[in-house]
């Protein structure tokens, strides 16, 4: 009896001391990423910076900001205007237009599975070392949102809702550009796509058509498509190697890509290998959106390769223009590629405009 009482007292003391410190400091609600089964089975852990943990409040704030034109110079353009949910957060236009109607020079990248970009180096040319860094750029780019950060911060501070939302997400720290990028990055890390027909096939929950099955065979055969060296495989279900390649598009480069960032001429003409997920929604293709259709993309690798000094040696048979697939293999390859599209991703209610 006495012992029990003592324990009781001890516990009460603990409880009191804990609760008093809890009352002093509000803490945002931690939020785990919803990791698809196929990712947790085969891949290493996603990249979440220790200084920007996922929270319920941070993700909600990031989502609101992503869809809000408030960050742009004249209040007309949101991130989502060039990263549209229905296009797997890319842009169906070859080049997006900024707030002053000026076109960019690369196709907007889809935003999916960004926490699994293990080497980081975001953008087609790897110019942003981290996802947070990436988000700084479009806000002030004169041909994109053409704003200044002081002005964007002022708009947020003078808004009727944002000051409270920032307070809840970042525990009272003052609104600034760093917190804006942190919130949006948290939202972007929730944009996870891992439930395509092919994913369910890998989990044994779905069957594929004979055409799709031959398509994966073309993809995985070094003497046919040989796509897997750069674009993943059933055990790397990101469908990208997250690195940079010159895939034989041009003899001379109008855009140096990675080479422009590193200053190393050996990197000229190299661009990030994009994931093959959600191709159904991400036309046009390539860093400059030069191909409208997947058929054009496949024809490029089959017959359209052009030699240049930095071409990746994985671009085989370049002297013949490529791997020379039969029409049937091309059609099957395309059918397989489309099985990596995930309608649940683009229609996920958590990823739509909350404003």
């Amino acid at each position: 009896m006495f012992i029990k009482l003592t324990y009781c007292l001890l516990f009460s003391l603990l409880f009191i001391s804990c609760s008093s410190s809890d009352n002093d400091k509000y803490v945002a609600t931690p939020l785990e990423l919803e990791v698809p089964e196929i990712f947790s089975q085969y891949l290493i852990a996603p990249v979440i910076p220790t200084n920007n943990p996922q929270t319920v409040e941070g993700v909600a704030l990031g989502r609101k900001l992503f869809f809000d034109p408030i960050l742009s110079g004249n209040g007309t353009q949101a991130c989502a205007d060039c990263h549209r949910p229905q296009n797997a957060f890319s842009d169906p236009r070859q080049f997006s237009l900024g707030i002053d109607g000026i076109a960019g020079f690369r196709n907007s990248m889809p935003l999916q599975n960004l926490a699994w970009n293990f080497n980081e180096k975001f953008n087609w040319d790897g110019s942003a070392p981290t996802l947070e860094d990436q988000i700084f750029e479009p806000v002030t780019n004169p041909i994109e949102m053409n704003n200044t950060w002081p002005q964007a911060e002022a708009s947020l501070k003078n808004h009727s809702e944002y000051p409270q939302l920032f307070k809840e997400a970042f525990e009272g720290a003052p609104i600034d550009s760093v917190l804006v990028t942190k919130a949006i990055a948290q939202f972007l890390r929730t944009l996870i796509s891992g439930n395509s027909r092919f994913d369910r096939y890998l989990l044994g929950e779905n069957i594929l058509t004979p055409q799709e099955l031959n398509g994966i065979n073309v993809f995985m055969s070094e003497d046919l498509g040989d796509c897997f060296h750069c674009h993943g495989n059933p055990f790397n279900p990101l469908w990208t190697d997250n690195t940079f390649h010159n895939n034989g598009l041009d003899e001379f480069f109008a855009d140096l890509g990675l080479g422009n960032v590193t200053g190393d001429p050996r990197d000229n003409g190299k661009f990030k290998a994009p994931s093959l997920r959600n191709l159904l929604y991400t036309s046009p293709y390539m860093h400059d959106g030069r191909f409208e259709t997947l058929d054009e993309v496949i024809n490029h690798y089959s017959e359209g390769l052009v030699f240049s000094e930095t071409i990746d040696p994985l671009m085989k048979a370049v002297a013949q223009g490529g791997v020379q697939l039969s029409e049937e293999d091309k059609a099957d390859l395309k059918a397989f590629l489309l099985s990596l599209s995930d309608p649940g991703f683009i229609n996920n209610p958590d990823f739509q405009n909350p404003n």
Partner: protein
Amino acid sequence: MKKLSILLIFSFIIIACGSDDDNNTPTEVAVNLRFSQIFDELTVTSLNLSSTVYVNEMNQELTISRLRYLVSRLVLTNSNGDSFLLSPYHLVDLSNSETLNLNTNLTIPEGDYTLSFVYGFNEEDNQNGAYADLNAVSWNWPEMLGGGYHFLQMDGQYNINTEPAPFNFHNGTARVSEGVFEQNFVVFNLPNTLTVSENSTINIQMNIAEWFRNPNTWDLNVFNTPLMPNYEAQKLMQQNAASVFSASVE
């Protein structure tokens, strides 16, 4: 009082250790590994990728733009027969300097050892999709070719000063015929003695030139790409692998 007890405990530990030393137990030292690459007398680093021209046994001029290889079951064994597993597997990527050094977090008694390892994975270890870190860097070997993982990827251009053409010198399980596969790893038991002491590093060196000459002279005009499904090329690579590695202590 508490401090005193801790002090006493520590003294015992120190005494215990000290008495071991009196029995001539050697000092425990850390083991660090380094992976280096040469093309005969030339050192090959990431700076040489896609730029330095090498000449192989057939006088073919080539550049190398990618070099990755896998070694596994790295074990040091001393004359008492004590074995120490340095690493279950390690992927070297010449373009990633972090992979060129391996600090094992292991300490072993100072002394003489020999090194053994497997080039690639042996049959038991070479399981489809079994290693998340290797999956994440797309190191997998296609299932229709026997699955598991690549052992080597060496990509580049040959006939670089005439008509450059790509080669993909990729090695892994050999496919004899559809659904019939042959193991293609190589077990290395390097004969030379490695004397390990404080701050020593074991350097495992690959001489790339050996891939092109010993015992099979490699003609890139014949074997360039695709080589993965080519049984003959896969076995020639395995034979040539036998002389590419050596180890020394630095």
